[in-house]
């Protein structure tokens, strides 16, 4: 992660000086991670693709405003976060209209469960979280960001980050690894 940060810093510096290839390399390095982050938030591949594209475009146009070139990743995810939630806010009435409001309790993954079934159980459990809780899980578990980086991306204090994440994990744990009723 340290080497990657150094390399990102170097590439951002070059891109600021007009080196197009350096920014293209940053795009190829981060596109999959940003896409997956956005996809887990907006739950639609095409929307996720558009938001990811917009995030990279905005990042390029505002590269000069990035104070610390070594913090490119949290800054890029912050842009992707803003774009995603802007889209979610626009979609909200439509999404709310489609939802019945009641979601079935997912079956916890068991030892004999197929990967697809586990995946469905996980997706169902994640769908029961609020967008903010889900985002905290995505940033920590799937993207591996530290608490302080998450705080930077989400624009909230570390204590709020932890509170969201801990509540989400408690809910997920109860869905995906419930205590045996015999206990």
């Amino acid at each position, binding site marked *: 992660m340290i080497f990657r940060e150094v390399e990102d810093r170097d590439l951002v510096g070059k891109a600021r*000086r*007009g080196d*197009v*290839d*350096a*920014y*293209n*390399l940053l*795009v*190829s*390095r981060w*596109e*999959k991670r940003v*896409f*997956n982050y956005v*996809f887990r938030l907006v739950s639609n*591949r*095409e929307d*996720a*693709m558009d938001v*990811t*594209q917009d995030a*990279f*475009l905005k990042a*390029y*146009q505002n590269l000069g405003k990035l104070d610390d070139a070594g913090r490119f990743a949290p800054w890029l995810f912050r842009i992707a976060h803003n774009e995603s939630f802007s889209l979610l806010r626009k979609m909200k009435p439509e999404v709310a209209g489609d939802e019945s409001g009641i979601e079935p309790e997912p079956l916890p*993954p068991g030892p004999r469960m197929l*990967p697809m079934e*586990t*995946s469905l*159980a*996980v*997706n169902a459990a*994640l769908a029961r979280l609020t967008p903010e809780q889900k985002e905290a*899980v995505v940033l*920590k*578990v*799937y993207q591996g960001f*530290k*608490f302080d980086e998450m705080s930077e991306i989400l624009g909230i204090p570390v204590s709020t980050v932890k509170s969201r*994440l*801990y509540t989400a*994990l*408690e809910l*997920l*744990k109860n869905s*995906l*690894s419930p*205590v*045996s009723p*015999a*206990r």
Partner: protein
Amino acid sequence: MLMRCDSELDLIAYQLGEATAAERRAVEAHIRQCEECAGELARLGVTQAALLSVREEEPPRRIAFVSDKVFEPTWWQRLWQPMPAWALAAASIVAGAIVFHAVWNPGTVVAPGHIAQTPLRRPLPDAAAAPMMEAKMVAMVQQAVADVEKRAEQRTRTLLAEADKRHELDRSEMLAVMNANYEELSKRYKNLLRYTASVDTQAAVGQ
């Protein structure tokens, strides 16, 4: 706090790799003697393993690069952008050619007071030289642009190849770590199940 035992230890921070070395040691010492917290930690591990079992998606198509149309700057951004290398090369050659032309054909530079006496443009010593020079200049510009483009293309290819290689290495390392974690968590989960079964048996015997 997750535990029903009195411990103030942060098991989630431990599980997510956010605990300090001292906190890690404290948690490890505690779970050796507290089965409840050991069970809680195992459940967190199973939850994390289940979440990580969902694979990442491949983007349906690649994100456009800066050289693609979507990244084209607006007119006002173009004004502020530095001149690209090929344009600079071309401009330098054109500037050089103008200077060369002025030296070659000094009659085009008119001193004040000599307007009436000096024709604005004297014929070139050799009339065939002008088109030849122009063709030479165009060829030089084209060659310079082609060279710059070729170098840029090679550099992009090299950078992308390096990035792919690095990405593949990162991915292999991550997979190895995930597999090791998954095995460890499965082991812990099995231990937890065994522990639950033994508690159930003890309870049944007690009744």
